[in-house]
């Protein structure tokens, strides 16, 4: 059994550290940086979405798990992002892949994949600008661009299956899982700029205590109430599912706006 599956819900995309504007958010991460340094986990499962970098409309996996030994930062049109190569964890990633497929999740196994800002920005927020990332990463890409993404319920259940997988890994490892994306935002159309603080607050309130309730939110409600890109929040539920039923909140931060987005940030730990 693993001793610990804490969760970290990150919600910053597209952030540029150098800008003054972002300072309050980066400051909020000081707590989180300290927290992960203390936890010092053996692996991070990073639930994120690819933004037309590794995948395109030619091939859209609903869930894809990165099993490679390393992942190159993607060239998103400005050359590769100047961050360290992302180290993988093939043994554990393959174990999760095999285990979740036998558990009837239809995951796509990926052995070669570039990872874009969706994965590397959360790392930068948590670890700053090191020469090497300090912890191996298992990328778990979720389709949230092509409608329909997986349902919230499916995401929560995948998380539960991942928890079982990590629990049955022959070695006892401390694993942290990041759920990224969201919170409410809309990047397109005449309604662009929609932010729903009430929706987000409710989500943050229930995330620890009543995830099954959040898992019932239909796609249409995300799209309507949290903005067309707010549907990324289903990715948080994968991370939540991987935790115990009972969790305690270690840290919470909510801020509007970063660019066009409400950003929320939550650290939970398992109650044992």
């Amino acid at each position: 059994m693993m001793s610990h599956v804490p969760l970290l819900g990150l919600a910053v995309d597209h952030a540029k550290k150098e800008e003054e504007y972002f300072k309050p958010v980066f400051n909020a991460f000081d707590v989180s940086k300290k927290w992960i340094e203390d936890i010092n986990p053996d692996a991070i499962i990073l639930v994120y979405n690819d933004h037309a970098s590794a995948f395109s409309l030619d091939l859209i996996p609903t869930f894809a798990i990165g099993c490679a030994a390393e992942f190159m930062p993607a060239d998103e049109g400005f050359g590769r992002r100047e961050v360290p190569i992302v180290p993988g964890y093939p043994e554990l990633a393959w174990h999760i892949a095999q285990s979740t497929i036998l558990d009837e999740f239809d995951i796509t196994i990926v052995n070669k994949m570039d990872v874009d800002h969706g994965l590397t920005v959360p790392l930068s927020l948590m670890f700053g600008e090191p020469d090497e990332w300090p912890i191996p990463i298992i990328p778990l890409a979720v389709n949230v661009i092509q409608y329909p993404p997986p349902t919230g319920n499916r995401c929560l259940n995948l998380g539960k299956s991942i928890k079982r997988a990590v629990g049955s890994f022959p070695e006892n490892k401390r694993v942290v899982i990041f759920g990224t994306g969201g919170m409410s935002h809309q990047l397109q159309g005449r309604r662009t700029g929609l932010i729903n603080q009430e929706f987000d607050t409710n989500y943050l309130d229930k995330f620890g205590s009543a995830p099954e309730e959040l898992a019932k939110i239909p796609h249409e409600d995300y799209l309507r109430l949290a903005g067309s890109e707010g549907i990324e929040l289903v990715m948080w539920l994968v991370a939540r599912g991987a935790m115990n039923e009972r969790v305690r909140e270690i840290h919470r931060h909510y801020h509007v706006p970063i660019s066009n987005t409400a950003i929320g940030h939550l650290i939970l730990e398992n109650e044992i």
Partner: protein
Amino acid sequence: MAVSKTYLDIPGTFVFDAEHSRLGYPLNMFCMSLSKEENRSAFTEDCKSYMNRFEMTEAQKQSIRDRNWNMMLEQGGNIYYMLKLAGADGTPYEQVYAAMSGDEPSDYRSMMIGGGRLPEGNLYKSDWAKK
């Protein structure tokens, strides 16, 4: 499971569903291609013949030539793909958002700093019809 499209009454929003994805395929793949430097150069040098590499409709090409972001969306564009065109142009994303919203960039920025567009009055097409 039947696929209901009740999301169609969300105002000012394009849900990137099957219909949109099929319609927008060539436009989005065009945008994505601009991630590569060699393609950006080819596009800059001769935008007409570069665009012809993709089987886009005339309306799609027009929307690109005009950098008419809402028209791209109507023609099946997906914002994550479209932002690659903005990136290639060096256009800040905020400018694209403001353009789609129809606001002046400074007004748009003020709205965002003030907490963004409120949900009230912006959830149903019928809300907007009243305006």
